[in-house]
């Protein structure tokens, strides 16, 4: 599967707590409007390439208090009806991989709803990111991924650090994208 995806802003109104929905109510447009994604089987695993325009990359926030780093994530549902927008729900988990340019390896992530994301080492997974001429291109080399194999759906999230995006401030795919 290879396609260009128009992204939407993750709605701030559903974010947990009283602060983000009120303070960031004005985030009505996606900071990253579009991404290209290619998913292909690679042996028993997967090769997923994700790219998007990013004029002002932020790849290092060491020794800073007010800067946020670029990032992207790719998700798959572990249950057929797992909602992607809320990072799953109790009993309907989503899982995936999170890339950041300041890390050697991607994180493996698991969530059952907003605010429940757990990050951990991603055994056997690699992610290589490169920024060139106003674009990030990230290549994930992932091991066998049962959720993806079974449901054949992915969802995307992109964080633009220069716009202080983090957590629920992000651009996401408008739903699950089918591999078929």
């Amino acid at each position, binding site marked *: 599967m290879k396609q260009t995806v128009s992204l939407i802003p993750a709605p701030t109104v*559903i*974010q*947990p*707590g*009283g*602060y*983000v*929905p*009120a*303070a*960031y109510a004005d985030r009505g447009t996606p900071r990253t409007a579009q991404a290209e994604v290619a998913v292909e089987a690679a042996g028993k695993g997967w090769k997923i390439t994700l790219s998007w325009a990013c004029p002002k990359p932020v790849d290092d*926030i*060491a*020794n*800073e*208090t*007010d800067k946020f780093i670029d990032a992207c994530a790719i998700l798959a549902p572990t249950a057929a009806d797992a909602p992607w927008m809320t990072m799953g729900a109790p009993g309907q988990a989503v899982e995936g991989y999170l890339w950041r340019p300041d890390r050697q390896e991607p994180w493996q992530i698991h969530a059952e709803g*907003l*605010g429940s*994301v757990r*990050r951990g080492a991603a055994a056997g997974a690699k992610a290589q990111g490169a920024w060139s001429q106003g674009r990030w291109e990230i290549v994930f080399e992932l091991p066998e991924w049962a959720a993806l194999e079974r449901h054949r759906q992915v969802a995307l999230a992109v964080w633009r650090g220069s716009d*202080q995006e*983090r*957590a*629920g401030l992000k651009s996401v795919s408008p739903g699950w994208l089918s591999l078929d």
Partner: protein
Amino acid sequence: MKYDIPKSDRQVSMVLDLNKCLGCQTCSVACKKMWNTDAGTDYAYWNNVETMPGKGFPADIHDPDTAGRNLAGETKRGKLPSIDTGYGRAWKFNHQEALASTAQPVKVWIKPKEEVKWGPNFDEDEGKGNYPKDNHYFYLPRLCNHCTHPACLDACPRAAIHKRKEDGIVLVNQDKCHGYRFCVEACPYKKVYYDHVRQVSSKCIFCLPRVEEGVAPACARQCPGRLRFVGYRDDQDGPIWKLVEKWKVAIPLHPEYGLGPNVFYVPPMSPPQLDDQGRPTGQPRIPLAYLESLFGAAVKPALDVLLAEREKKKRGEPSELMDLLIAYDWNDNFKLAPRHREVLA
């Protein structure tokens, strides 16, 4: 979804008498040596002492409309301080060069290696006014207010911040924190800090391991000015209730932020201005409007009570308030009791 902030069974609290603060920073050092020695907390002061009038720390935190809650209780958008312009980076000094110069013909003095533009206490003792007629400043020690309606708690999308039911202490669970820093944004007092090495938020924990043993926080115990009082707000035999509720001389900093701070200040009674001949005019040096900009409208009645009680004491009449503030017996400043330790699941 807005977090419910359950009412704590009790609220541990602190009162600081600004008439007694020397600006010696013993509290800051005691706190920093105990809690903020990691590389990512170089710039962080869970407790700091600011010279007022001044820019505060981080810079400009006393400017109006910096986060907090509106009248409806909703949180307002705040700002993230920059480490350069808000906090100031830890400066590097020429220690090696200076120490090695002792046997040299020309002494090399210890000085920062780079041009310094801002940092904690950068404007220390500057103050305002015209010397010597009406110049003025006072010291304002600050720590987390362990608010009744904490904005930091509301701001965390991971519910990593909680307010302890047994004593109202506000804590960050750093195992859950992902370093998003909404809490730093939302706190108008800027008393949540970001550890950029561990990439988690950190804040004053009111020295909870000490409080659980019935011992006051390090900033309070180490204060040579004996200006800090620690106890529970509802303890009518304790100093907090007497100063806050009974005498109403201890008032919160920036009550307009709407967070219900649980750290209170006895406002400074400034000496009189002088006239052209150097005679006292009777007018206070610190403008009342300035104090009101920090402590709200309650500052005037608080000062009136303090002045009246001081006059009583001068006349040889008894004053419970003055005796309490004088702190003849330092142990009376602290009224805590050992409690069971919290065990996190």
